[in-house]
């Protein structure tokens, strides 16, 4: 499927990486022409104090702001619309998102609605956003989603119980201020979930049928950093050096998947998230090794490179031994992160599988999976994950 001469595009936002990057919000908001800023965050991040740092930075630059924190995990269309209304009422002209994937996706949604004046669910799909959203600065506080550098915004439609994906290069934020220090407030479970989410990004981007040498670089380095440091990072939450590694890995994985796109694990995780409101990172973690097992035959040499990046010495192994070694490594990482879990835990039963599989097959991420699955394939993967 992949040829040497296929077209590839690479889009990345401007970003500043490093401890203290969050404090540059005021300066950059001003540089982007901001006068009044809608700050989108969630109560957990506010409690951690990162939102306060950001608003202080805005105030220091003399910029006024309005705070919008009514954002839940798996942000909902209603929350996006309420935020857009707030943006309008407060006469804002720029948006800053502070937090994990939820506030950032919600902020993207608010931006899209503010410019285009239509309901957020109408933008479902690829390249459906006509007018560019207002300037958006992202300050990610989890090392996993990479929504701060990606072209995705995932919004939950509570009525249809489905996560819709809004995908467009114009959804890529203007600026990401990536401050690893913000990761220090994450508890071990969240660190684990987001870390495995990031690892899944790296793996799926690398084996994606749309990968390219540019994304491969980022993806492999992400896999290397995350597989090496995640467990330590969970055990030593205050170790900034480790947090830097994880944040770096997350960023690289984000740059890779935003351009090479993902695969079956994400398609199936999105389906689970919409149906069961399950944490995205957890779903990915549960599915990752099962999806690798399914995809392995489609691209064994790629999976070998992943195994090597994870530090496995494959020399002298038979192909099936290589595969088992990789799967074992992934399961080991899951165990170390405390995410050696099954779908039963999040309330999925056998009877849910047909509808989950249907939705997963329709998810855009399935398009770049290296092996095209049928419905039964997906059901089997879900079954194995129960």
């Amino acid at each position, binding site marked *: 499927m992949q040829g040497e001469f296929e077209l590839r595009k690479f889009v990345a936002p401007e970003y500043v990486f490093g401890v203290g990057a969050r404090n540059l919000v005021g300066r950059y908001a001003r540089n982007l022409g901001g006068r009044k800023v809608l700050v989108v965050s969630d109560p957990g991040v506010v409690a951690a104090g990162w939102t306060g740092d950001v608003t202080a930075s805005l105030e220091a630059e003399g910029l006024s702001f309005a705070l919008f924190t009514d954002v839940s995990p798996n942000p909902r269309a209603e929350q996006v619309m309420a935020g857009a209304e707030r943006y309008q009422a407060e006469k804002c002209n720029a948006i800053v998102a502070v937090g994990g994937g939820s506030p950032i996706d919600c902020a993207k949604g608010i931006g899209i609605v503010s410019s285009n004046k239509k309901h957020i669910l109408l933008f479902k799909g690829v390249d459906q956003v006509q007018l*560019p959203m207002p300037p958006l600065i992202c300050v990610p506080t989890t090392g996993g989603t990479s929504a701060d550098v990606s072209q995705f915004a995932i919004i939950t439609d509570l009525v249809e119980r489905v996560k819709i994906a809004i*995908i467009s*290069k114009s959804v890529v934020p203007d600026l990401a201020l990536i401050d690893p220090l913000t990761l220090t407030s994450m508890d071990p479970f969240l660190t684990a979930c987001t870390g495995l989410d990031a690892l899944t990004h790296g793996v799926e981007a690398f084996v994606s*049928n749309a990968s390219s040498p540019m994304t491969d670089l980022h993806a492999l380095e992400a896999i290397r950093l995350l597989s090496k440091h995640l467990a330590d990072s969970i055990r030593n939450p205050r170790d900034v050096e480790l947090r830097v590694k994880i944040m770096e890995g997350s960023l690289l994985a984000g740059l890779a998947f935003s351009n090479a796109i993902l695969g079956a694990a994400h398609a199936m995780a999105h389906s689970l998230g919409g149906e069961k409101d399950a944490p995205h990172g957890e779903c990915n973690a549960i599915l990752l090794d099962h999806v690798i097992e399914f995809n392995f035959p489609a691209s064994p040499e790629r999976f070998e490179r992943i195994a090597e990046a994870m530090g496995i010495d494959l020399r002298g192994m038979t192909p099936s031994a290589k595969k088992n070694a990789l799967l074992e490594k992934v399961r080991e990482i899951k165990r170390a992160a405390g995410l050696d879990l099954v779908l039963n835990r999040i309330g999925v039963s056998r009877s849910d599988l047909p509808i989950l599989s249907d939705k997963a*097959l329709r998810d855009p991420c399935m*398009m770049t999976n290296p092996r*095209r699955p*049928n419905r039964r394939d997906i059901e089997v993967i879900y079954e194995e994950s129960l």
Partner: protein
Amino acid sequence: MKSPSDSPENGDDLREKLIGLGERSIRKSYYPELQQRLEELERFKAFLDHSNDAIFLIEVPAATILDVNDSSCRQLGWSREELLALSIFDVTDLQSNQKAKNLICAAREGNGERALVETVLFRRDGSRIPAEITLDRMVFQDAVYAIAVARDIEKRKRAEEALRKSEKQYHTLAEASPIGIFYTDAEGEYRYVNDRWMEITGYSRYDALSLNLAWGDNPEDRAGAVKEWLATARKGHPFKAEYYFQRRDGRRVWLYSQVMAEKDDRGEVVGYVGTITDITDRKKAEEELRESEERRLRMQAQLEFAAEMQSKLLPQEAPVLPGFEIAARCQSAYQVAGDFYDWQQTAPDLLTLTLGDVMGKGLAAAMLMATVRATLRAVVQEHKPAVAMQLAERALRHDLDSSDSFVTLFFGQLDAGARRLIYVDCGHGLVFMRRAAGSVEELSTRGLPLGVFSTDGYQEGTVTFGAGDALVLYSDGLIDALPEQVLDHGALAGQLAGAASAEEMVDRLVALVPPEIPLPDDMTVMVVRCQEGN
């Protein structure tokens, strides 16, 4: 491992788009949108620049000019750069208007404050333009501004002045007018009245404002009349009416009014313009004339009735008298006459004849004439002429005395067999005998008219007829009608030459007076002719 349900083309297409190779895929760029907005802005600016109004954006409270449109530069003669270095007070007289000054110079925030100020613009060359400026306060991006939109009102000012002058002329004209002039609104409420209107109605100008068009003197009738008036006037017809109007002092006058609807450009009635004239005197005169005419017609009818009556008193047929023919005609100057003639056959060959003329003419004379005729009829049958006249005179004396009148009368008794006429001439004298050969013979026996008292009795005269002789009797009406002719008996007799009958002789004598000449007096002619065959 392919899914049969997935169309590979669709999947590939979606994949292309996902990896950013879709037709519309581009990283966020404001440029296309920016360009569109800028174009809109350019268009808007062009639109402002083409405005005839001068528009200024003013900083509050410094009053400095921050932006202007092209029209400002054109009208004031300053360049844009020069204007931007000036204060709004340098180019307008807004300084002298407290409200405008407050609006521009008050530091407190305020959105939506507004003022309309008449002021002047100062041109660069020192000249001034009268202008009307709309001032608005607005807050934009937390800064307070005033916007001044100035409109050149020089033309309007001139037009206003011209209008004021023309209005004054019309006003003077209206006040000097000898007729009452008023103007009402569309509902008929008075809006303007001139001095003459006040004189006619007795209402003051102030009173008029609370009046509606008052029709007639009956308040109940007004509404109906106004409705009729509105209906007529709305159709665009001028409305004219004469009506009774009760003045404020209660006096009632007749008014003649003309009203026209005044319409606006869309044809809607906006008011009514009208005039009133006091026609009370004319109405009075007309009334009197009408009454007198009525009386006259009544009199006329009576006179006609009297005339008919009188004509019946004259003999309707000529008498049949052997050897004689008799004809007569009476034409009155008015409907009724004081003249009369009469005859009565008292025996087969005996006939009495009368031709009388009561003094005066018209109805009074006619009444006396009837009395005289009746009296004569009563006495002539049984008595000889002189006695008969005596009796008649006695009977009539009182009536003639009290009416200061008298009657001239020729009375005769013709004996056809003897061809002899015995007559009494009571002061008449207008009688002659035309002998067959044409000679004239006077009848000389005369007495006094009836009504002139005398102790002498009446003398009888006698005249005899030969064949072809004609006795001609007439009243003074015949000769008075032709005063320029000398109509003595000879001349009259001459007219009768060759006439073959009494009737023809009467015709000829009557024909002397052309029909178009109005008779100054009653005219009576009688001819008694002795036929020639006997």
